[in-house]
């Protein structure tokens, strides 16, 4: 299987039972993507697959031959943080930090969905082309990512700040 992970092409051979999460963590040593529940319920394993967010524990790696994968390691580096990574630090949007890679990858995908005009369950009128990312909208769209430290207010604030900056 050929995968492009964080801009680098990899030719890999593995058991077809391997999940995408296990491939990244156990075979490629990219441990930034976290294993939380391993049932697709907590969102800690969220990454970007072809620009869209996905819970990597619920998909087989063999299904993604030729796909482009971006993990938290590929979003930014310690010297050049992604705007969302910087905003999470500025707003103290974490405590233990275990869910943070998934939160940030999910927020990147969510902002792309919002800019593409996707409505959500919290959208009052789904027929509008551009949905305003209000705090209730952000909470609903990020509701697949659970934070046991309950840093939700700061996570919402960080995402809202990045959204406002990119909108300008």
């Amino acid at each position, binding site marked *: 299987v050929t995968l492009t992970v964080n801009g680098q092409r990899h030719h890999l051979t593995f058991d*077809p*039972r391997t*999940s995408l999460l296990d491939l990244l963590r156990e075979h490629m040593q990219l441990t930034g993507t976290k294993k939380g529940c*391993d*049932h*697709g*319920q907590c969102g800690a394993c969220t990454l970007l*697959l072809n620009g*869209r*967010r*996905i*819970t*990597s*524990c*619920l*998909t*087989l790696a*063999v*299904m993604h*031959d030729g796909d482009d994968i971006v993990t938290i390691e590929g979003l930014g580096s310690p010297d050049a943080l992604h705007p969302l990574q910087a905003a999470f630090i500025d707003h103290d949007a974490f405590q233990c930090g275990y869910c943070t890679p998934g939160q940030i990858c999910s927020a990147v995908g969510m902002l792309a*969905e919002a800019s*593409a*005009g*996707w*409505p*959500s*369950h*919290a*959208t009052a*009128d*789904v*027929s509008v082309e551009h949905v305003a990312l209000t705090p209730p909208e952000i909470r*609903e*769209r990020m*509701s*697949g990512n659970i934070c046991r430290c309950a840093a939700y207010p700061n996570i919402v604030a960080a995402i809202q700040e990045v959204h406002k900056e990119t909108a300008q």
Partner: protein
Amino acid sequence: VRSFTYERVTDPDAACVAMAAHPDSKFISGGTNLIDLMRLEIERPPHLIDVSRLPLTAIEELPDGTCASAPRHETPTSPPIRSCAAGIQCSLRHCLPGRQGRYGTKRPWAAICCSEHDATTSTTPPRTATSVSRAPAAPLYTALTATMPFWVQARHALPPILPIWPWR
């Protein structure tokens, strides 16, 4: 996870042929908890058919109304969906991205169908307010109960007597 063989198909006919060749196999794509169930050995398919790359990316309008059936990432912003958004809004909420609809999570992406005056989803049909009508009683039963004292008639409205007395 029990071992299985894996096959990727790229057109619907090939998917049907693959399923006919392996009747015990399961289709796999995004938005499934099949992998979750396979980990728990609730599902033990000997063969998996990957249908995630079928070229079903278009929203089709059918003669008897508008029928939308497409991958989930195409559905929210598709013109047929937006054109009937007022009628379909409640139904669409079941399928929108977020916790419920994210690729890789447990809730499958529903196909959405709506006509000019009605909007239903294939998975969660809306409830309609209809009066509940009981089946008419048999004539003999009606005649017998009419001759009974009122307290015997009322007994029919009470729960049945316990088959075993709770005390000795």
